[in-house]
């Protein structure tokens, strides 16, 4: 499998005697208290990322993919957000139990985040050199001059042409792709162990998208970082991810290594998604369409949240929430890393 190949080739994990995953999310719940009731955005999510590994979290709007990431990063708006239960273990330590001071030390230094909209994430009245250098001044106590040198180094690293000349430019003077590179440079500044990228290329054009994804993958290799890629784009995921978690209505409905997922989906939602996107290399007649609408988080259907839209739904789906269980071959042989939360996963993957 590609994951093992990849991790063997890179240097050993840095910093720490902790063995096991870099980040582990356990049974995380997030809810929002609104005027119209309690919106259950995340309902028991489990996932883990190792150093050097890319986990893609795939889902549509309202699936809870971004909320989970915000909870990990500790930038969830609370209130109205609330984490009633769950653990977020970073190198084995539960971040939800840490003090605000301890969390701040991890944020930026150990875990960094890249957002979709680079223009609104950068301060428009400060030049990019200053903003990049800020990391070094604040965290490492560097002088202004040294920080600027470091900033130029970083801009070179993310392949911004003429970095030296452009270090004093302001964010609006850069194109969308270049701004996203600056965001990446900022996230990289303190060489974090984990990067969370929330739809990093969604706002970019296809030709620029490819450049940015390539850069991200290259830097990840170089620094042996963990990467959580949050996206709705099945194409982007196929190009870079090692393993995928598919989310629907605040739960992970399927988890699998990337090749496996595309070859044999074990959840009707994943299958529906794969069938419903038009392919560049195929000209089909009619697209398969998942019927119905994404769920309203204030009124998640009982049982399996996907049941009103599922072609396989039966009585049990309307009453019992399916657990995320390991998926096996027809003869019972293990399929490492594969899980599905469907009462009928056997029929879906093997049928």
């Amino acid at each position, binding site marked *: 499998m590609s994951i093992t190949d990849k991790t063997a080739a890179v240097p050993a994990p840095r910093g720490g005697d902790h063995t096991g995953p870099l980040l582990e999310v356990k049974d995380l719940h997030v809810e929002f208290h609104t005027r119209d009731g309690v919106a259950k955005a995340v309902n028991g999510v489990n996932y883990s990322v190792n150093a050097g590994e890319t986990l893609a979290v795939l889902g*549509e*709007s309202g699936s809870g993919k971004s909320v989970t990431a915000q909870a990990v990063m500790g930038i969830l708006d609370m209130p109205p957000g609330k984490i009633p239960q769950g653990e977020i273990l970073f190198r084995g330590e539960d971040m939800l139990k840490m003090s605000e001071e301890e969390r701040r030390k991890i944020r930026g230094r150990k875990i960094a985040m890249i957002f979709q909209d680079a223009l609104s994430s950068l301060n428009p009245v400060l030049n990019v050199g200053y903003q990049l250098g800020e990391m070094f001044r604040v965290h490492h106590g560097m002088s202004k001059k040294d920080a600027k040198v470091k900033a130029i180094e970083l801009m070179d690293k993310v392949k911004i*042409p003429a970095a030296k000349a452009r270090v004093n430019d302001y964010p609006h003077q850069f*194109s*969308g*792709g*270049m701004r996203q590179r600056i965001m990446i440079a900022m996230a990289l500044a303190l060489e974090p162990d984990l990067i969370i990228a929330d739809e990093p290329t969604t706002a970019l*054009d*296809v*030709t*620029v*998208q*490819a*450049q940015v*994804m*390539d850069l991200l993958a290259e830097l990840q290799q170089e620094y042996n970082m963990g990467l959580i890629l949050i996206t*709705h*784009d*099945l*194409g*982007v*995921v*196929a*190009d870079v991810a090692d393993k995928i978690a598919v989310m629907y209505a605040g739960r992970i409905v399927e988890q699998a290594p*990337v*090749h496996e997922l*595309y*070859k044999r989906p074990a959840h009707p939602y994943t299958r*529906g*998604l*794969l069938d*419903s*996107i*038009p*392919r*560049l*290399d*195929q*000209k*089909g007649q*009619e*697209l*398969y*369409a*998942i*019927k119905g*609408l*994404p769920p309203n988080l204030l009124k998640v259907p009982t049982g399996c949240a996907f049941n009103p*839209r599922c072609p396989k739904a039966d009585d049990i789906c309307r009453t019992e929430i399916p657990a995320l269980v390991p998926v096996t071959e027809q003869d019972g042989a293990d399929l490492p890393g594969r899980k599905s939360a469907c009462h009928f996963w056997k029929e879906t993957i093997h049928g």
Partner: protein
Amino acid sequence: MADLSTNDEAVAAALDAPVGRGEPILQVRGLKKHFPLTQGILFKKQVGAVKAVDGVSFDLYQGETLGIVGESGCGKSTVAKLLMNLERATAGEVFYKGQDITKLSGRALKAVRRNIQMVFQDPYTSLNPRMTVGDIIGEPFDIHPEVAPKGDRRRKVQELLDVVGLNPEYINRYPHQFSGGQRQRIGIARGLALNPEIIICDEPVSALDVSVQAQVINLMEKLQDEFNLSYVFIAHDLSIVRHISDRVGVMYLGKMAEIGTDEQIYEHPTHPYTQALLSAVPVPDPEARAHRERIILTGDVPSPANPPSGCSFRTRCWKAQDKCATEVPVLAVPQRFQGEDTPAAHFSACHFAEEKQVVPAG
């Protein structure tokens, strides 16, 4: 044409004439839109122009879907606005049944509007939040009362809701009570109300969730067959454009780089920009990522206020030579393919056009 356009009656009569299937219904010739860049507060002085659309020509045939693809800033949305007469063209013509609609105004323009309608990108801003769904879909009948008698309108609106797959009882609800996909259906119903011949779709599904996109695409294909519509389908998503289009035009920096049937463009592209664009599209198949050649373009799209001389793509092109900086390539069948019976023989604006397969065979 110019003298005819002053005669409203004659225009209206000409517009009612049917166009046979496969004949051109819309002919765009040398269309240009330059937005002036001005300085000064009260007395404005023009200091330059953003050449958003800079000489675009194509035909739309009756009953077909013409896809227009390109990156942001290539001018594809401005083309949509020009075709709809929402912006006045700086130069060029758009012939609809022989009438140059860019020069029309008043009643003649209103008559054209009945036949050319639009579906917008953002279903959240394209519906007036203060109006009910019934008012939104019924508005075309208020503006063109001759289409439906007053007593008939409520029934017509409910029929339209049904046609686009919404519950006709939703007639009194407001847009914010619907999801994105449902709103886009409302927008489509409004576009259909006047029974138009052409619908200009500006990124109609790009704001929707993946699982809902397919529903809307299928609906649009179904409606095309049922009402014999011609679509101009503008999008940045090459996969969706391939799925829905009969012919495809690729735009770069306000110009058409290449145009042909979907097979010619996707399987036999000859313009380097098209090739780069296609190779950059992520394919949802991890097997493909190993044996796929990707052309990663360097740099960004130049500013349309100051486009490069000669071929506008030359600053990012790996084939660029001196000739590209001095001579603007024309959109025509490249010389080397002329007279040959190959799919590569289609319009391509490149001095060094050559075929290159970039999409893995499906």
